[in-house]
């Protein structure tokens, strides 16, 4: 009696244990602790005027057409700036998922620019999480205006060159909110030393808030350090709306700058944002996958 009781309890117990098998629970134990890379910190490679941490993926070619109108406060005669336009046409190619190369031409000061971008760290979650994405950006720009014969001194190619080095540090706090800091140095080979230094330091800050899956609001500000009192330029400030449709990103912006190379918008912004010297504009990008993935 006693024996059969023990026997049946054991048997039932062991059947019960079997029924309790939770395969999904077992799977959780089998799964290796995964490290998830955080992607899409921003929609575009540009935040407003300046760079974002985003790099093109390997084999992707981005065509970027950016455009700033004249000043809104020029009034009805200039149709609030719409009669004028400053354009930058550029290309960027992803050599690897981390390394990108680009070129561009900006009508402001007839500037040619070339740049390299390298994603040093990528934000991730899970085991060994990395809190930030860090991208290094460097460019060289040649200002082709004025013509040699129009210059006030004997201008050479070297005088026309400037360099920019930036560290772009961003964190995607949530799928909606991403913020970025941009410590920057701009070196200009030749400057008017009564108003500016050859080496200029700035700290940029910006971010985006997604308002829907395809639309985000952006902002960007560059603060310049050690600016001489005689300097006529302003810190650049801009706001934008990113709209993403398939392979295109449309960025509608308003900003106190019309230049689209780092030298121009970080160190030579001519508009006073709060006096209404505002330029409407847009960046339109189209991404082509040149080399198929795998």
């Amino acid at each position, binding site marked *: 009696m006693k*024996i059969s009781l023990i026997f049946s309890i*054991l048997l039932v117990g*062991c059947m019960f244990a079997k029924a309790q098998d939770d*395969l999904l629970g077992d799977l959780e134990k089998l799964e290796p602790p995964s490290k998830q890379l955080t992607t899409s910190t921003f929609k575009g490679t540009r935040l407003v005027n300046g760079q974002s941490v985003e790099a093109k993926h390997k084999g992707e070619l981005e065509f970027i057409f950016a455009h700033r109108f004249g000043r809104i406060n020029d009034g009805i005669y200039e149709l609030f700036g719409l009669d004028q336009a400053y354009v930058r046409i550029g290309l960027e190619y992803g050599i690897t998922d981390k390394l990108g190369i680009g070129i561009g031409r900006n009508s402001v000061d007839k500037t040619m620019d070339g740049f390299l971008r390298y994603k040093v760290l990528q934000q991730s979650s899970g085991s060994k999480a990395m809190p930030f994405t860090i991208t290094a950006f460097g460019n060289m720009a040649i200002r082709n205006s004025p013509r040699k014969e129009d210059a006030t001194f004997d201008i050479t190619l070297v005088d026309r060159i400037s360099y920019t080095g930036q560290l772009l540090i961003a964190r995607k706090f949530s799928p909606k909110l991403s913020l970025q800091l941009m410590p920057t140095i701009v070196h200009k080979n030749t400057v008017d030393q009564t108003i500016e230094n050859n080496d200029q330091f700035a700290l940029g800050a910006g971010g985006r808030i997604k308002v829907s899956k395809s639309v985000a609001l952006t902002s960007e500000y560059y603060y310049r350090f050690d600016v001489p009192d005689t300097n006529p330029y302003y810190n650049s400030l801009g706001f934008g709306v990113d709209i993403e449709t398939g392979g295109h990103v449309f960025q509608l912006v308003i900003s106190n700058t019309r230049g689209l190379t780092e030298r121009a918008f970080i160190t030579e912004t001519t508009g006073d944002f709060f006096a209404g010297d505002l330029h409407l504009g847009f960046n339109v990008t189209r991404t082509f996958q040149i080399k198929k993935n795998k």
Partner: protein
Amino acid sequence: MISMKNFKLLFVSSLLCFSLGAAAQKFTLEKSIVKFYSAATIENIEATNTKAVSIFNAATAEVAFVIPIKEFEFEKQLMKEHFNEKYLESEKYPKATFQGKFSDFVIKEGEQRAVAQGKLTIHGVTKEIEAPGTISMTGNIVTAQAKFKIKLEDYKIKIPQLLWQNIAEEVEVTVEFIYKPQ
């Protein structure tokens, strides 16, 4: 005190219990391929994931799998980005899971038809599904295949209006799991 006879019985019953446990032979994944295909007017979209994990319990015909969403690979990187960012919201819902059973499954060598029935969770939404497929056992290796369609609407996957023409409302999912004994 337990007599020798009782002890023997206890021993036999524990053995029986263990052997029952052993019969509940579990298989884990050796290799997996999960694909989905969406046919649409502008471009067809295809993605492959080889990072799924799964357990198959041959004794009970129970099966479960977990698919990490971010591991789907597309022909175009931008598709992958949109898939994660806009449709599946993989930062919020990193995994798709299934827990269910193959009905009509019997342990035997060779191929047999079976229907997987159970709960499929995608994008945080759980639905009962039925997916017809085949299971073949050769020696220690079990191969399970199934094909089914999912409606994006059922899993609250919304397509932004600007993009609707790029995405089909229904996608075809193919899973192939090759198991070995755990």
